[in-house]
C-alpha cells in the first residue's frame, strides 16, 4: 500500500471527508473501554495518567510513557502519532470509510499572507455542537475564546528552533539544542529542547488555558486537536532535518537503539521501537510523508555521521541569584550577582578560538497548577536602556516535573537561554558590570470550559490546585 500523505488541515477542500471521518472514529474510540489499547482513554493514558486514575497492571508498560525534556521527545512522539493514525485509520475502515486515512496537521506557523487563518483553530474543532445539533466529538475542554482564536501570536508560533544546528546537548548550563537534552527514558523534568519549548509547549497551554485538557500532559491527548498539533511538530522535525547537511540526527547507539518504547499496532497488538526505527517516515509503521516538507538537501544517511551534539563546550557558573525566586506577582524581578572575577575581565578578551557565549539558566522550576508562560527580560540595574527579551519560560508539565514521587524526583523544569548578543548589547561582556536584573512577566491564561465531551465525564472531576511557581535559582553561565 502506498504511504499516506499528511496534509495541512487548512488546505483540505470543503468537500474533503478527512475530518468528518476523524470525528466518527473519535466517537467510536470513546465508546471503547479504557482497557482496550485502541480506545480513546487508553491512547490518552499512554501520554499521561491523571492522578486520580488507577493504572491497571496490564497497562504498566504502556501508560504514562511520554518522553519530555529529552532527546527522545521527537522519536517517541513520532511513534505515538503513527500508532494513533493506524488505529484511527483501521477504525474508519470498520465504520465503512476509506482506507489509508492520514492525520492532517495544523500549521499554525504558516505565513499569514499565504493563509490568513493559520493561527485560528479550524472550525471543525471549536464548535461544541454540530450544525444539526449533535455532539461534535472534535470539540474538547479548552480555554474559552471566541471563534477559535487562541491568541497564537508570533511569540507562540515562532520557528526560531529550526535555526539551531545541534540536535542535542549533554552539557549542563548550555541550551539543549533542537531536539532536547541527552537523557535516558524520561517522562519529564529538566530542560526542553528548542522545538519542544517553542512552539510545542506554548501551543499546549494557550489552547488548554487554566484547566483544559491540553495544559496538562496527563490529559492533553484527550483533546482531538492534540494529534494535529503533534503531527505538525513531527513535520517540523522533517523540515529541520531537510535544511542541509549540518542538520543531523544523533548517530550514537545511546539515542538510536539503547532505549526502546512500546506501543500498539492498529489491531491492538503491542510492538517495540527505538529512535532508529523513526528516522524515515515512509517506513514508520504504515509509512507516511508530508505534503509541504522541502526536499532534503542531501540523501539522509545514518552511517558515518558525527554525533549531532553541541560543540565541545564547558560552560562555567559566573553568577547567580541570592536564592529561590517565587513568582507570586504579575511581574517579579531578581538580581543576579556576578562573581568578582567575571566583572573584571571582558568576555571579548578570550584565549579561546571564538568569543565566549553567555547563557541565562532558570534552574529547578517547581510548582503546582497551570501558571502559564512567562516572558523573561534582562536589564542592567540603573542604566537607561530598555529591558531586553531573553526568551519565553514555558511551564507545560510543571506539576509532573515537581512531583517527588515521579522518576525525576521532583527536581522540576529548567530553562536555558543563550543571551550572548543581548549581553554584548547591554555591556555585560565588557567586564564592568557586577549585576544583572532579570524580570519575569506572567501571561495570564483564560479559564477553560468546565464541560467535557460526552463519554469522558470522569475527567470532569480532575481538578488542579491553584497555580504556584518558583524558580530555584537564576544563574549565568559563561562558555
Amino acid at each position: 500500500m502506498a504511504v499516506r500523505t499528511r496534509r495541512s488541515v487548512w488546505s483540505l477542500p470543503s468537500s474533503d471527508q478527512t475530518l468528518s471521518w476523524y470525528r466518527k472514529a473519535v466517537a467510536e474510540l470513546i465508546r471503547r473501554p479504557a482497557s482496550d489499547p485502541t480506545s480513546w482513554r487508553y491512547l490518552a493514558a499512554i501520554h499521561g495518567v491523571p492522578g486520580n486514575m488507577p493504572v491497571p497492571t496490564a497497562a504498566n508498560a504502556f501508560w504514562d510513557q511520554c518522553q519530555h525534556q529529552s532527546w527522545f521527545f521527537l522519536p517517541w512522539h513520532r511513534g505515538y502519532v503513527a500508532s494513533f493514525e493506524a488505529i484511527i485509520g483501521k477504525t474508519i475502515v470498520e465504520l465503512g470509510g476509506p482506507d489509508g486515512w492520514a492525520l492532517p496537521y495544523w500549521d499554525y506557523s504558516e505565513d499569514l499572507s499565504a493563509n490568513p487563518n493559520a493561527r485560528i483553530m479550524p472550525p471543525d474543532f471549536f464548535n461544541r455542537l454540530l450544525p444539526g445539533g449533535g455532539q461534535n466529538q472534535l470539540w474538547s475542554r479548552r480555554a474559552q475564546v471566541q471563534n477559535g482564536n487562541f491568541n497564537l501570536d508570533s511569540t507562540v508560533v515562532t520557528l526560531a528552533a529550526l535555526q539551531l544546528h545541534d540536535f542535542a546537548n549533554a552539557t549542563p548550563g548550555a541550551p539543549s539544542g533542537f531536539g532536547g537534552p541527552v537523557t535516558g527514558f524520561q517522562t519529564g523534568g529538566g530542560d526542553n529542547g528548542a522545538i519542544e519549548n517553542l512552539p510545542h509547549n506554548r501551543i499546549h497551554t494557550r489552547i488548554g488555558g487554566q484547566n483544559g485538557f491540553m495544559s496538562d500532559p496527563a490529559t492533553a491527548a484527550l483533546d482531538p486537536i492534540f494529534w494535529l498539533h503533534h503531527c505538525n511538530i513531527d513535520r517540523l522535525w522533517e523540515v529541520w532535518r531537510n535544511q542541509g547537511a549540518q542538520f543531523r540526527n544523533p548517530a550514537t547507539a545511546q539515542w538510536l537503539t539503547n532505549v526502546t518504547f512500546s506501543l500498539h499496532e492498529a489491531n491492538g497488538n503491542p510492538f517495540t521501537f527505538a529512535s532508529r526505527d523513526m528516522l524515515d517516515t515512509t517506513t514508520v509503521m504504515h509509512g507516511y510523508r508530508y505534503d509541504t516538507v522541502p526536499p532534503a538537501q542531501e540523501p539522509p544517511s545514518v552511517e558515518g555521521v558525527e554525533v549531532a551534539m553541541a560543540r565541545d563546550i564547558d560552560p562555567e557558573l559566573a553568577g547567580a541569584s541570592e536564592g529561590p525566586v517565587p513568582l507570586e506577582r504579575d511581574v517579579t524581578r531578581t538580581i543576579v550577582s556576578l562573581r568578582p572575577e567575571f566583572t573584571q575581565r571582558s568576555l571579548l578578551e578570550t584565549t579561546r578560538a571564538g568569543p565566549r557565549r553567555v547563557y541565562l539558566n532558570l534552574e529547578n522550576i517547581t510548582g503546582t497548577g497551570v501558571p502559564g508562560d512567562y516572558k523573561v527580560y534582562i536589564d542592567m540595574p540603573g542604566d537607561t536602556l530598555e529591558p531586553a527579551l531573553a526568551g519565553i519560560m514555558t511551564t507545560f508539565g510543571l506539576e509532573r516535573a515537581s512531583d517527588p514521587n515521579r522518576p525525576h524526583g521532583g527536581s522540576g523544569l529548567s530553562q536555558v537561554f543563550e543571551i550572548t548578543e543581548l549581553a554584548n548589547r547591554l555591556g555585560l561582556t565588557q567586564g564592568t558590570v557586577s549585576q544583572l536584573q532579570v524580570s519575569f512577566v506572567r501571561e495570564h491564561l483564560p479559564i477553560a470550559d468546565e464541560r467535557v465531551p460526552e463519554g469522558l465525564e470522569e475527567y470532569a472531576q480532575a481538578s488542579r490546585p491553584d497555580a504556584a511557581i518558583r524558580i530555584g535559582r537564576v544563574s549565568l553561565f559563561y562558555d
Partner: protein
Amino acid sequence: MIAMLARVIHQAAPGAGVLTPQAIRGLRSAAFRWSVAPAAIAWILLLSLPRSEQWGTLCVAPRAGLADGFIAQTSVAIAAIEPTRMTAEWGLMIVAMMFPLLSPAISHISARSFKARRNRSVGIFIAGYLAPWLGAAITGSMILILMRSMFAFLSLESVAGVTGCGLAALWQLSSAKKKAVNRCHGTKPLHAFGTAADLDALSFGLVHGSRCVASCFPLTVLPFIAGGGLGMMAALFAVLLAERARHIPQYGVSAIVLVFLGLTLARG
C-alpha cells in the same frame, strides 16, 4: 558487570563515545574523580585484604554458645564489636557500592558551583552524604546481630540467609522502594556564594544520603544475615548497577536474583 559499570560511568559525560573528547572529559570530570575512582580504590583495598581479615563485624557473626540464650548471645556479639574496624568496614562498603551511583548528583553539584569552589562543594556534599549512611551502619549492625542471635536461638541458622535475601527481595518489589528511588533522583537549587553555598552542599548531601539509605538500606543489610562476605557484596553491587543501567529498573529481576542468592547461601 563491566558493561553496566561503563554505563554508570557514562553518566559522567552523557553522549560520549569511546575516546571522544567528551569521554576524555568524562575521565577528568568531578563525577569520575569523586565517585568512580574512590569506588575503584575501595574495591582494590577490599580485594587485597587477607581473606581472614575480610568482613569481621559485618559478615562473620560473632556467636556465643547456644545454651547461653538469646540475650547472652546478643550481648556477646555486641561486646565483640570493634568500633573502629566496624566503621572502616562499613565505610569501605559504602564507598565501593554506593559511590558509583553518586555520579549524577556529583555532576550536578559540580556543574552548578563556581569553578573555583567545585571541589569544596563536592567534598562537603560527600561529607553530608556519608553521615546518614554511617548512622545506618550502626543500625544495620545492630539489626544483623539481633537477627543472627534470633536465628541461632531458634536453631534456624540454615534458613537465615534465604530469609534475609527474601526480605530484601520483598523490599525490591514494593512501591515504597520505587518511590524512594525516584526521590533519590531529585536535585535541589544551590546557593552560589559563601556560607550559604556550603550549607546547601551539606544539606543536599544529607538529603541525598538519607534518600539513598531509604532506597538501598534493606538491600545492603538484610542479605548479610548469614554472612556472605565479598561475594555477596559483589553480587549486590551488580544488582544495583543493573538497576541503574536500565532505563526502567527491573526490580522483579533483582528480586529473583536475591532469592537465588539466598538459596545458594542455604545450600552452602
